[in-house]
């Protein structure tokens, strides 16, 4: 049976009608047309679908929509404006950290949550946390260089 869920996504409340077990990734991509969150495996093993729920990085592919009805969800679309990028996005462009870029939105969301929750982290702390996000093109060393810069800036604030 479908139900109507009032979801808080990127600071806006929106109604979605679907089965309560629907994985969040499909609600974001198909109901709300937020295509930045990617499908990668459906098992919570690659991180392409990572979004932030109440400040914590979660896999949206194995998160049923019923479980987030009281949470504040942030997706890649919600961290920048048309005039101002998030520092992680800026830094990734500066370092040209990415090739195909399919993994990037998930990596950005996990890194954002981690750096905000752990402002004095080392680059190896960030790398360990990002272990749940895969990149097949081999952009990891560039992405880490970009995140290291952001981590240092955040820590010095």
């Amino acid at each position, binding site marked *: 049976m479908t139900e109507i869920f009032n979801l808080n996504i990127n600071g806006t409340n929106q109604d979605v009608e679907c089965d309560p077990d629907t994985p969040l990734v499909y609600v974001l991509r198909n109901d709300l047309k937020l295509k930045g969150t990617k499908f990668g495996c459906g098992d919570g093993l690659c991180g392409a679908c990572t979004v932030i729920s109440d400040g914590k990085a979660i896999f949206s592919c194995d998160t049923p929509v019923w479980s987030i009805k009281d949470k504040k969800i942030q997706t890649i679309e919600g961290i920048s404006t048309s005039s101002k990028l998030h520092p992680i996005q800026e830094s990734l462009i500066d370092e040209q950290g990415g090739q195909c870029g399919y993994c990037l939105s998930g990596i950005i969301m996990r890194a954002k949550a981690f750096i905000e929750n752990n402002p004095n982290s080392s680059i*190896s702390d960030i790398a360990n946390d*990002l272990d749940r996000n895969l990149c097949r093109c081999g952009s990891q060393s560039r992405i880490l260089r970009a995140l290291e810069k952001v981590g240092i800036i955040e820590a010095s604030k």
Partner: protein
Amino acid sequence: MNMFPNSFISAPNIADWFKFTDNGKVEMISGKVEIGQGINTAFVQIAAEELDIDPSRIDLTAGDTRTKLDGGCTSGSLSMQTEGLSLRKAASAARVVMLEKASELLQSNAGELSIKDGEVFLNGNTTNISYWSLSDALDLNKKVESYMNPKKPNERKLVGKKLNRIDLPFKVTGKPIFIHDLELDNMLHARIVRPPSQSSRLISIDKDSTLKIKGLIKLVQDGSFIAVICKREEVSVKVAEQVKKLCKWSKAPKAVADPIVYIKNFNGEIQTGLLKGEALNNDKINFSTEVSRQYLCHASIGPCCAIACWNKNNLEVHTHSQSVFPLQRSLAAVFKVDENTIDVIHHQGSGCYGHNGSDDVALDAALVAKAIPEIPVRVQWSREDELSWSPLAPAMVTQASAYVNNDGKIENMSLMIKSPPHVKRPVGAAAVNLLSADYLLEPILSPNPIDTALDKGGAADRNSVPLYDIPNLTSQKQIIYDLPWRTSAMRGLGAFVNVYAIETLMDDIASELNLDPVQFRLSHSSDTRIQGVIENVAKLSDWNKKDDGNTFKGIAFSRYKNSGAYCAVVVEIKVDEDIELINVWASVDAGECINPDGIINQIEGGIIQSASCTLIEKVNFENEEIQSKDWETYPIIKFNQVPRTFVNIVSHPDLPFLGVGEAAHGPTAAAISNALRKALGIRIKSIPITRDDIVAALNE
């Protein structure tokens, strides 16, 4: 079928490449497609240079059969060497035609004119003439080859410098740029129900029970091809699982238990790719090795995807294929229609490292959509489809043998390669080569592929001829067709294993002769470009500094296909419980560089991907059935396993472009092995190099 046609066959005129629109933009066509490698940015940079315009003015359409430009297949690290060069000529011809028209209007010599961001200046003064003001008067239906005049190296201003990738701002902000993100009106979602293994076929399906499945709009069946169409995507996932339980499939025959053992023992027709000087007699061999690599998956992060719609007068296919025109021909052969009634349109996909399932899913979408005309249907492969139904990179065994004379010089080297075929791409009616075509009621079977001959770049035998000064050289291969798994091109093809064989043997010889591996290579290289990258990487990595007993360095070199970029790699490792990659340095000579950062990015990515293949990856089988179905059964390298990477370019602005996309793979793998030999004194000959292999070798 030539997979790399000359661009000027299909697109001879300037107008086939460029259109100046009145909003100050340039519409540019490309036959090569973005597969993550950054080609769109490099092409924009080349055209902007020759047109003398700002790169942001260019809107690029790439890989679209509705245009004329048939770029063949985007593969083989050839896009720069082939179409990049054609594009430079085409853009220069547009500039020449424009300047001719301007000089006619201004009654001046072309030499007095210059162009700045598309505006014409006469002796430095503005003229109100531009590509756009002239666009109606400018006849671009002129042969590129009659007007082209590319700039001399010293006239170039834009190329050779970093240009940020044009796609990255979209990708870091989550804009819908991928095929996966495309949504057409009234689009439905489909999933494919696959058999348990490749040669299984459908015995029966309980269709009555499928009628009771909630959310199933339509069940599609053609022979053993089965798919479900649903309104909601997540419903299609569940419905496909339910339908799978209602299917009975034939059992696949027993397959060999250990493919590597089978390949090693295989004795078939020997194809000799090269015999230079004398063949190497068995009794003369004083150094040899036999290396192997397991089957690999492409393992893109985003599983393959396509959207198709059978409109009234055409079939419209949206795809991330590397080869849109060949795919168009193969689809025409499957559906027995004129290829001109099929539009194949490229969109970016998740990273592509060779012939993956992107063509196959396009046929899947077209087959499914046929059942529900005039409605677009999107097929998204599952993670399991992606890993176990895309073509695999074949397992391989390469033997390298050498005769080294008393002066420490290699007089003879001989390679024997045994491998399933490496190229099974769709080309059209002659070889449809699309997965689901084999499963139809009237299957369209494709012939055994020909493993490309060495003088055409090679496939299993790619890079089987060392570039060192060795007077006698032999390269031979045996292609194995009776292993059951579908294999095709994956980054580097045979080069990965052959370079591993040659470059580990080089180190084994150097070590036996008590020679430094860098000096030993240099003493066998009279080519200054080889010397250039080896000396450069040695300097970059501080090679001459003695290993500290804690970390160890290994070096390797190759020139991809012996015709692409030169690449030398030094890997620094530490061995505790596992091999830890600390630093990797690389030096690359790609001739003229358009976008140096793009080259460095490709080499860095190649190093990390190769490290993953060398240390971790292997497809697991149970008989014919592929058991690598998710990221736990097919792990790849993770963030905390990657080394720091440092890449330096040896640039030659006056020399032709050389492709870099596959240059780092072989040298990285061999350099890891050579570092390990230094660390522990053991040579691991099987890839992936696992902890078990190391322990076993230490116990020997």
